[in-house]
């Protein structure tokens, strides 16, 4: 006979695995700190690309302003200032992405806990069924 409780828990587990779980179960391999660090590193190239795009936009929109800065401050100082701003932006971008992925991890972690709870409930149901079968055979 069908065990309705088992079917209910199994449906919940299967629904999670086929939906949100596809992405979140990957998170389970990492600790929060490792996950955020990995994402921080992977954000580095995108941070550089964003910085370059912003620089390009500034140059396209107003070519005079960077040239004036270059003339007034001198070549080395202007490049140095640009370099500092660029690095500061990339660092800020990486930390912002780490913050966002941290939040994402926290959100998904809650649902993963419920998934784990359901797995344990399922295991318990299996144990109970096995015990019932054994006692019947004896």
């Amino acid at each position: 006979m069908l065990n309705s409780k088992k079917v209910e828990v199994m449906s919940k587990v299967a629904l999670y695995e086929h939906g949100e779980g596809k992405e979140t179960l990957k998170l389970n391999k990492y600790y929060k700190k490792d996950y955020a660090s990995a994402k921080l590193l992977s954000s580095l190239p995108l941070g550089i690309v964003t910085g370059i795009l912003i620089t390009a936009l500034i140059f396209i929109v107003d070519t005079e302003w960077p040239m004036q800065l270059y003339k007034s401050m001198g070549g080395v100082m202007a490049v140095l200032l640009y370099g500092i701003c660029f690095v500061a932006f990339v660092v800020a971008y990486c930390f912002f992405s780490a913050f966002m992925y941290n939040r994402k991890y926290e959100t998904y972690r809650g649902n993963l806990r419920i998934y784990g709870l359901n797995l344990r409930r399922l295991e318990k149901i299996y144990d109970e069924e096995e015990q019932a079968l054994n006692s019947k055979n004896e």
Partner: protein
Amino acid sequence: MNKLINLRNKIEGFYLKHSKIVGYLVRLLISFACLILVRQSINFSPFLSNIWTILALSLIGGFIPIKFLMILILAYITAQVYALSIALGLVIAIILMIMYLLFFRFAPHYGPAFVLMPILFFARIPALMAMLLAIIAPALSVVTVLFGTILFYLIHFLHINAATFATATGTLEFTKVELLIEGVFGNREFLLALGTLFAVFMIVHFLKRISYKYSIEIAIAIGTGVYIILMLGSSLIFGTLTVTRLLNYWIGGLVSGALALVINNIWHPLDYSRTEYVEFEDDEYNYYVRAVPKATFEREKVQVKRINKRKTL
């Protein structure tokens, strides 16, 4: 109220039954509405403006995940502008890419709200998105409202200056870019809309968290008032107030507030009359909890008529 909740339950039930088809239709409708609206404003490429192209793209939009819908619509905007001017297309592409890399890469689920912002602007109810996001989303989602406002004003400026952009060619390409950037980011109306929507979002977001009865409803009412006052006041100060604007701000603000209230009541139906206050403590904290039960509704009475009686052995 009961009718609204019943309606919500019916919609929910219908969605659960036909989730795939409904999801597909919603994505198709969003993409079609956005693409048609963009075409009405910036139809520079005959191929892209063709209704069959738009229908084909909408069909694609229906099949792809909602996360990629935003990319499809932004690519369409860029391609339309590129047909007008290479430099403008490049600048629009850079601006949209920066927006994506700065925010939507981390929160792609705000993509639909972002592309819906221009539609709400055209319908004169941009405050609706600001209030809804303030209620249901975290404070960071204000970026969606701000970026959506920038997107609308970019499209709007290209629309009203289409003739100027179309006539200038050759070396004047970069002049077009300067004109676009100055026209949008130096536009007082744009800055006012940006500031007003930011203020509305923040006010609603922080007021709804205050521990009052009907805090969300009060927040929406105050948000609506702030929107109307700021838009009308700024227009009065700068001497740009016309009868059309007066009506737009009044009706737009009130409709936004009313729609936000209705959507909120469908989404979070709360019954404040049964609010309970609980106080308890553990080793570290004292807890003062206000529990507001969800509004219940009278279920439809269903009579079950047994045709075959159950046989007993």
